[in-house]
C-alpha cells in the first residue's frame, strides 16, 4: 500500500515535467537505480559487494543490440518476443557464472574478483568485433515501436522504467522471503552453519548472483533503449563507479535506497557544472558525495527515515506534555 503512495504521484509527474526532466533526470535515475538495486541486493542480502553489476547490465544491453535493430550491420535480428527473454537469460547466466567464480570469496576478495571480471569484460568488448563490434559498439538500437513513435520516447520510456523499477523492488522483496532467499541470507550470516544443515552454499550464492543479473539486465535493456546505443563505454570504469556511488549514497538498508541515490547522483551530475567554474565541477560532485557519506554513513534513505522518526517522536512528545 505504501508503495502506491510513491507510485501514484510518480505516475502523474509527466503531466507537470518537461521532456528533459522526465527523460534525462527521472528516467535516467530509474534506470541507474535499477542497476544499483542489483548491487544493493547482493550487498544487503548476500553480504557481497560486486563491482560487475554494470557488466551484467551490459550483457543484456549488448544482447538487445546484437539480436535487435542496429545501424552497424553486426548481429542477427530476432523477433522481440525472443530477444528480451534471451537478453535477461544471458544476464542471469552471466550472473550465475560470476557467482560461481566468486563463490568462495567475501569482502575485499569478492570486490577484486568482480572488478577483474568487469574490467576484463570491458577490454573484451573493445577488442572483439564479431559479437561486440569493438570500440565503436552498437548504435541505432531503437526501442520497439509504439504507435507512431517507440518505447524509447520520453513518456513511454519513463512509464516503462517506472514499472520495471517497481517490479524489480517487488521481486527483491519476494525473493528474500522465499526459501532460496532465506538461504542466501543464511550464507551471509553463517555459511558454515548452512552447510551443516545440508544446504551447500554454492547454490544460494549462484542463485543470488543470477537474480542480481535479472535485475541488472532489466536495467541494462532499458538503458540501451534510452541511449539507443551500447559500447565499451557503457561497461567501463565510469559506469562501474557511478553505480557503486549510487548504492552507497542511497544506502543498503532498503531496496528503494538505490533510487534515492540515483536521483541525487543524476541531478548532481547534470547541474554541478552550472554551479561552479567548469574546471572544478567534478570536485564539487566529489565533495557533495563525501559529505553525504560522512553525514549519512548508512545512506540517504536511512538519514531520511531516521529524521522522519525523530520528527514523529518529537511531535508525539509535544502532544503528551
Amino acid at each position: 500500500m505504501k508503495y502506491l503512495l510513491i507510485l501514484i504521484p510518480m505516475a502523474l509527474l509527466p503531466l507537470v515535467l518537461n521532456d528533459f526532466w522526465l527523460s534525462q533526470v527521472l528516467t535516467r535515475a530509474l534506470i541507474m537505480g535499477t542497476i544499483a538495486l542489483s548491487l544493493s541486493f547482493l550487498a544487503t542480502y548476500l553480504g557481497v559487494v560486486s563491482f560487475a553489476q554494470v557488466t551484467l547490465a551490459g550483457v543484456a544491453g549488448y544482447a538487445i543490440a546484437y539480436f535487435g535493430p542496429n545501424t552497424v550491420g553486426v548481429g542477427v535480428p530476432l523477433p522481440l518476443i525472443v530477444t528480451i527473454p534471451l537478453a535477461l537469460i544471458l544476464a542471469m547466466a552471466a550472473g550465475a557464472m560470476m557467482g560461481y567464480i566468486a563463490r568462495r570469496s567475501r569482502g575485499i576478495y569478492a570486490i577484486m574478483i568482480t572488478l577483474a571480471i568487469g574490467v576484463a569484460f570491458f577490454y573484451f568488448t573493445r577488442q572483439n568485433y564479431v559479437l561486440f563490434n569493438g570500440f565503436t559498439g552498437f548504435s541505432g538500437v531503437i526501442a520497439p515501436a509504439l504507435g507512431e513513435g517507440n518505447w524509447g520516447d520520453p513518456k513511454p520510456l519513463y512509464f516503462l522504467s517506472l514499472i520495471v523499477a517497481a517490479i524489480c523492488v517487488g521481486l527483491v522483496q519476494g525473493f528474500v522471503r522465499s526459501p532460496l532467499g532465506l538461504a542466501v541470507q543464511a550464507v551471509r550470516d553463517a555459511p558454515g552453519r548452512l552447510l551443516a544443515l545440508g544446504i551447500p552454499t554454492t547454490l544460494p550464492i549462484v542463485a543470488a548472483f543470477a537474480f542480481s543479473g535479472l535485475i541488472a539486465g532489466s536495467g541494462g535493456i532499458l538503458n540501451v533503449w534510452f541511449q539507443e546505443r551500447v559500447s565499451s563505454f557503457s561497461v567501463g570504469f565510469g559506469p562501474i563507479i557511478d553505480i557503486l556511488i549510487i548504492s552507497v549514497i542511497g544506502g543498503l538498508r532498503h531496496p528503494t535506497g538505490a533510487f534515492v541515490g540515483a536521483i541525487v547522483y543524476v541531478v548532481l551530475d547534470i547541474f554541478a557544472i552550472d554551479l561552479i567554474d567548469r574546471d572544478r565541477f567534478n570536485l564539487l560532485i566529489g565533495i557533495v558525495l563525501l559529505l553525504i557519506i560522512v553525514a549519512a554513513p548508512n545512506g540517504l534513505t536511512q538519514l531520511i527515515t531516521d529524521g522522519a522518526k525523530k520528527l514523529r517522536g518529537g511531535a508525539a512528545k509535544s502532544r503528551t506534555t
Partner: protein
Amino acid sequence: MKHLKIAVSAIALSAAAMPASSEEITIGVISILEGAFAALGQDGIRGVEMAVADAGGSVAGNEINLVVVSSDASPDSAVAAARRLIEQDGAKIIVGPLSGSEGLALRDLSRSYPDVTIINGSSGAQDTTLRDPSPNFYRFGGDGAQWMAGVGTYAHDTLGYEKVAVVAEDYSFPYTQVLGFMSEFCAAGGTVPEKFWTPIGNADYSSVVYSIPQDVDAIFVALGGSDAVSFLTQYQQAGFSTPIIGGSITIDQTVLSSDASFRDMLIGAPAGTPTVSDYDSPEWVAFAAAYAEAYPDGLGAPSIFAHHYYMGAQAAMLGLEAVGGDLSDGGAAFRAVLDDLEFIQPTGGTMRLDENRNGIVDNFVIEVVELDDGSLGTRAIQVVKDVNQTLGQDLETFLAAGPVSRDNPSCP
C-alpha cells in the same frame, strides 16, 4: 513521502531553469573537461569564446549565451550533454563534440532534433559526414583521413619509402588516419605488408616490436600521447632504428618534450596535421597572437582543438549574422546559409563545405626538427590545399571501397 518532496523540488528547479529570454541566443558547447583530455577540451572552449568575442558577443542585437557542458569521450555522455543543452537550456545551436565516437553519436542524435543545428567541434571520424550524413550536422573541418593528406605521397616520392608497417590504436579515429595515409601511399606504389592494432592505454608493446618485419623502410605510428611514448621507447630499446611516420596526434608536445632515448629517431619524421603551432602565414600569426592575448595562461599556441572549435563557432556566428539572429523557422534559413558559407580560416585557406556538409580544408605535412636550443619542434614543409573528404577521388569510387576498418584499405 520523500519521493514527493523530491518531485516537488524537481518541479521548482525546472521552473527556475527555464530557457533563456528571447533576447538571448543560447549556443551549447560540448567538450571534454574531465580525464586525460581535460586540458585539450579546455582549449576547445577557448576557441569558441574567441569566435564569439570576434563577433562582439552578440549578433544583430541578440546577446550570445554560451552554455558549456562536459562529456567524457564516451558517446553516451555526449548524447546526454546534447539532450540537456537542447531540452533544458533551449539551445538551437550546439558546437562540439571533441572525439570521434562522440561525433558519430551526435550525428545520430541530430536526426531526432531536426530544428537543432549541430556544428562539429574537433571530432574526426570519417562516417560522421561521409556515410548516411544528417542534414543538420555540420563539420567545418576535416576528418582523420584529410588530416593525413600529403604524407603518403611525401613518404613515397620524397623520402623514397616503398614498404611501411602500421602500428595504430584499435578504434575509429586511427582507422581513418591509416586510410588517409595509405590511400596516397598505396596509390603512389608503396605497400603496407602488416598492420598492428593495439588497445588504447596499452603499456607493453614487446609483442608488436618484435613482430614488425625487418625489411620495412618505415613505420607509420598512429598512437596518441602516452601510447606513442611507450611504443617508441620500447622500439628504440629493442635496438631498432627504422624511421617513423607520425599520425596527427602522435607527434605532439608530450612526445617532443620527452627526453627519452628515442628522440634522435624522431628527427626528420614526417606527420600530417591541420594545425601547425608556429605556422608563419599572416592569418595564423594574427590568430595565435589573439589567442595569446586572450589567454595568457593558455597553451603556448592554439591547439588543433582551439583551432577547430573556433572554426565551428565562427561558422555559427557568420550564419547567425546572415539571418539576423532569427532561428524561429527551426533554423532552416540559418542552415541554408551554412551550406554555402565561405570564410577565411585561421591557417589562411578558404573554408567551405562539400555536399555532405564536411569541410574542404588545407592540410600540412610537417617534420620533426631539432631546434637551436637542442629541443625538438616541428616545421611545416608542405601545405596541401583544398583537401576534400574523398581525398580527391570520385565519391562513388571512394564509397565503393567500403567503410574504413582494420582491414580496409589494404595493400600488402
